[in-house]
């Protein structure tokens, strides 16, 4: 690579030198395109095609839509799709419902993400010990994750409606209005539900990270007199930091895409819009109301915000 570099930028400017430079540039381009092992591109090309079809194209199309006046039409119908600049962004950013949906999702993330990280790490640590019925517990925590949301939502409605088991247990301490129709409690209830439902997946991530922590560290710490809590704080938490970053980013990304739970658990974003998420608004604007251009603008804003949050996580957790 270095010789190619010197060839390209070397002092020779004669005819021979220029020929060598062209060859070098072509080699450099081929190297960039195919890498040191061009056959590798052959193997990864199915994935690249998949990536282009499933990710690059839709994302690019969404960005394009957000800058144009766009609505879905029947094939062959000729309509203008004029460039409207930032009009769609202005429309959604001046809409109080959109702001409220982002605020709702912020409340959701503030509750859901820390709860997910702490609960999954603590549970994974517990399940990493030699326990009786360990396999049973591991399976039990994983089952909600693989069960359809539609099914478990029914159970939560049964638990948290005004006559549900939770309120019956709480008696006079039960909130009024009840959990899912209380504008202060509805989103926290959804956040706890999602944390519970996804816990199994994050426990598995942490379990695999914990199993790579050298046991010698714990043995040395024990010899030095460290207690369980000190070992957890000084060995476990630093050792699983990469997993924590992954959990944080995944929980944030999946949380930001919240749709099914408010749609089903609170009947379309109620009460009074307290659980309306940006993705739920995208569905309403794009599919129900025929404004996919505005829906795309909401989506682009969401992607930018979540990317920024993820970069902050990364910077914060990888600073060492």
């Amino acid at each position, binding site marked *: 690579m270095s010789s190619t570099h010197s060839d390209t930028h070397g002092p020779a400017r004669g005819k021979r030198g220029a020929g060598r430079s062209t060859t070098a540039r072509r080699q450099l381009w081929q190297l960039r395109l195919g890498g040191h092992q061009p056959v590798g591109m052959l193997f990864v090309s199915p994935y690249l095609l998949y990536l282009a079809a499933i990710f*690059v194209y839709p994302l690019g199309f969404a960005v394009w839509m957000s800058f144009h006046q766009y609505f879905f*039409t*029947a094939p062959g119908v000729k309509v203008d*799709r004029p460039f409207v600049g930032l009009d769609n962004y202005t429309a959604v950013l001046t809409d109080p419902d959109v702001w409220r949906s982002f605020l709702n999702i912020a409340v959701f993330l503030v509750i859901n993400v820390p709860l997910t990280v702490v609960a999954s790490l603590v549970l994974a640590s517990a399940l990493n010990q030699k326990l009786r019925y360990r396999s049973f517990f591991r399976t039990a925590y994983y089952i909600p994750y693989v069960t359809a949301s539609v099914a478990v939502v029914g159970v939560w409605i049964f638990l948290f409606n005004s006559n549900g088991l939770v309120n019956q247990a709480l008696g006079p301490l039960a909130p009024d209005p009840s959990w899912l129709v209380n504008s202060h409690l509805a989103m926290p209830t959804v956040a706890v539900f999602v944390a519970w439902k996804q816990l199994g997946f994050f426990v598995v991530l942490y379990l695999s990270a914990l199993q790579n922590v050298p046991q010698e560290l714990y043995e040395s710490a024990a010899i030095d007199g460290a207690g369980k809590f000190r070992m957890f704080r000084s060995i476990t938490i630093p050792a699983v930091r990469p997993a924590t970053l992954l959990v944080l980013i995944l929980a944030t990304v999946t949380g930001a895409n919240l749709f099914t739970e408010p749609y089903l658990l609170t*009947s379309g974003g109620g009460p*009074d819009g307290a659980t309306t998420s940006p993705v739920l608004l995208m569905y309403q604007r794009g599919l129900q109301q025929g404004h996919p251009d505005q829906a795309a603008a909401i989506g682009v804003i969401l992607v930018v915000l979540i990317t920024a949050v993820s970069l902050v996580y990364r910077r914060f957790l990888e600073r060492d």
Partner: protein
Amino acid sequence: MKKALLVMLPVAALTLSACGSGGGSDSGGASNDARGPITVWYSNNAQEVAWGKSMVATWNATHPKEKVTAQEIPAGKSSEEVIGAAITAGNAPCLVLNTAPAAVPGFQKQGGLVALDDFPDGKQYLQSRVGDRLSQYASPDGKYYQMPWKSNPVMIFYNKELFKKAGLDAEHPKLASYQDFLNTSRKLVKSGVAKAAIWPAPTSEFYQSWFDFYPLFAAQTGKQLVEDGKAQFASPEGIKAAELWKTMYDEGLAPKESFNGDSFAEGKAAMSTVGPWAVSVYGDKVKWGAVPVPTADGTAGKGTFSDEKSIGMYTSCKNRATAWDVMKFATGKEQDGKLLEATGQMPMRTDLTSAYPSYFASHKDYEAFAQQAEHTIEAPNVPNSVEIWQTFRDAYTKAVIFGKGDLPATLKGAAGKVDKLAEGQ
């Protein structure tokens, strides 16, 4: 990976620029004179499926070269979304016998619907079948993109057993005026015979207002939600109807929480807003009575929400002459009679009761619905129809169901937004 992505971005950009050209050729040269096989979707409730199969079999028996292939509308959250997606994909059937009028402006904007008055006898057929109510189904461009097919005029069903237990007159319940309705509701709940006097869905979906606010508003005013491009719901009459519901929610006579199931069938609610479909559904399970929706002072209402479904012809259809003939066949007097017999839903005909005298003589329960069917009020056919309903529903949810803010001010604010949306902004 980054390098690979960089290589692929121009490819994506080229593809996008192709998308941006917006459109292509026309819809395949389909004409209103073409004949041949067609496809049809019908509703997925058991009674309509049975009627649909019978209708198609009868047609196919005499039209071997113009065969109809029919199926239930594919499953989805709502038929409107399924149809909207099918229009975009270009695989909508020729006819959908379950097209909601509120969705028609959106489908029309998509270029998905065929104007029925483009057929030589189109306007005349629609007018003769539907009569004066037809004007409610005209699109802003003056054309007709739907055949008004069947209505479910909304009334109040009440549970006679629960009324008796609450010490109320079950044969002549006091439900005509807003005050009567409130007093009766209070007695029902206070007596403990049911958790709710009435339990409409207090949820945020755009169409829920069709079963709480809109029937009362229609009965009081005889107007559509939007008329002449202006929202009507913030009028004194509209505010009065909203205030009735606000009181119902404030006093716990109507719960703010949705019920998972059928609150009326399970005896959790003593009343329900329903169409004639309810007669066969509740049958003998509940001893029910039916009365018109109340008006402010108890005088006879000027109308009620139609809960109507239309038949739409979609532009993906190649054999449109056959589709038009099938549409007329399915809405002819014979098939309308069979639909009435099978489902109890009211065909949108001017001569409904006189056309089927023996049916109404032997089905007294349906007579009241048939009378209501004569003056139904439809969801307005205006641009941004669904967005308008959602705007109204959001304001209603906030001010009426959850009692936040000033009710008249909130409705007036929503009316301002609706006016702009109705202009097509």
